[in-house]
């Protein structure tokens, strides 16, 4: 059974690349561009992992994470963003909201390792 991953990013290029990469890595991927779409997709087809950008066009990624947490309390959330955080901020603040934080400049192999660490292969 393939694990289902919900990708949320307002940049089409990033969505497409992540969808292609994760599909080739053996996951079933649903890619959406906004928070409402993400909530609708999560309600319709429960994901095993949510990967989201921090800055979305229509809302803040962390706010959306809060709403998804209410809907999917056991589902891990991965923050994938180009905004560079202070490691202390990540450790003290983001860890409470997301399971994992990965920079968008990180290699795909590191993203895959993080995904596998959260949902398995």
């Amino acid at each position, binding site marked *: 059974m393939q694990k289902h991953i919900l990708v949320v990013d307002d*940049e089409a*290029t*990033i969505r497409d*690349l992540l969808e*292609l*990469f994760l599909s*080739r890595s053996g996951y079933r991927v649903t890619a959406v561009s906004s928070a409402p779409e993400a909530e609708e997709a999560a309600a319709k087809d429960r994901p095993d992992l949510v990967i989201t950008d921090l800055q979305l066009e229509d809302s803040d990624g962390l706010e959306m994470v809060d709403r998804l947490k209410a809907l999917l309390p056991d589902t891990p959330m991965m923050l994938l963003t*180009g*905004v560079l955080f202070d490691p202390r901020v990540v450790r003290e603040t983001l860890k409470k909201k997301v399971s994992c934080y990965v*920079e*968008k*400049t*990180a*290699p*795909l*192999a590191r993203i895959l390792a993080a995904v596998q660490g959260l949902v398995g292969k």
Partner: protein
Amino acid sequence: MDKMVRRILVFFVLVLGVFVAVAIDSVRNINRAVAGSDWVNHTHAVILENEALRSGLYLADGSAHTFVVTGEPGDRRAVAEALSDVSEHLDIMAALTRNEPAQREQVARIDSLVSARGAFLRALIKARQSGGMDAVHSVLADDAGQLALKDIDRAVERLKQDELGLLTERDNASFMQAQMTRWTVWTGVVLDFLLLAGAAWLIRDDLAARRSAASALRAANNQLEAKVSERTAELFSANELLTAENLERSWSNQGLEHQLNYNNLIINSINDLVMVLTKATNISRVNPAVVRVTGFEPHELINRPFASLAQLTHAGTAPMVDPVAQAMKDGRDLRDQGATVLDKLGRRIPVEVALFPLRDRDKVVGGVVILQVISGGKA
């Protein structure tokens, strides 16, 4: 048509040729045997007629002598009938030997002798009927020892022996012919058998060669398929690797682009005038606030000395040494320096200058200058 098939066809044509030759020869020998049989029957007929002639002649001769003794008309008629039979046998013999000159000549001689004997017998009968015994004695005296009859007997016997000799020759020839037929048939059978064996050997050889070729072809195909599969797997693997590399490269590019856009967004969002200087204090980059405050377009500012745009003041007068260049050279920050910026319209705008040298591995490669317009100025 390939070479092997042509060879096999040649073999079968030869087999057919031998078969036809044997058949023709056999038919010819059968015809000869039939003809020989006709000839034998014909020869036997001549011999039988010859014997019948001799019997008839003896019968005529005996009946004539009996008539001389008895004078009975029945005996005379017996002589006439016997002579008539002899004459009939002679005619038949003449007919049977008409195509054979030697026998025909012998029959003619017998005919002549028989005619003479017939005349003698008729003379004897006539003498008995007319003249009595004296005349009979006179006629019989001419036939003392019955030499004429013995001549006829010898001639008849010679003809018989000649015919028997011919029969023997024909029998030998017939035997030889039968032997020849047997030899021909068996030779043909053996030859055909050898040819068929040769054809079978060629067919077997051809089949073995075809099987071997088919096997080699199958092996080559299998080898080719294995190579194709191997190559396909290699290409698939290489394609997968290439796709993964392309994906990684695209991801890296988007990451860098995203980061660059984000950095630009930060700088462009600052309301103060931000400029990046080279180590020689030439302007290499400006934010939109610089364009908005000075009226210069970016291309009018790039590569222009910073000092030509902004002049630092020191207690109301321009310093003898450019503090920006000095701070850049020393690799130290410069803060809260009073200066004026000359905009595109020639107006002087009072600003406070801060310089932060850009370091790359402890080496100053340029600097960032922030100009904050003093309240009451243009910005």
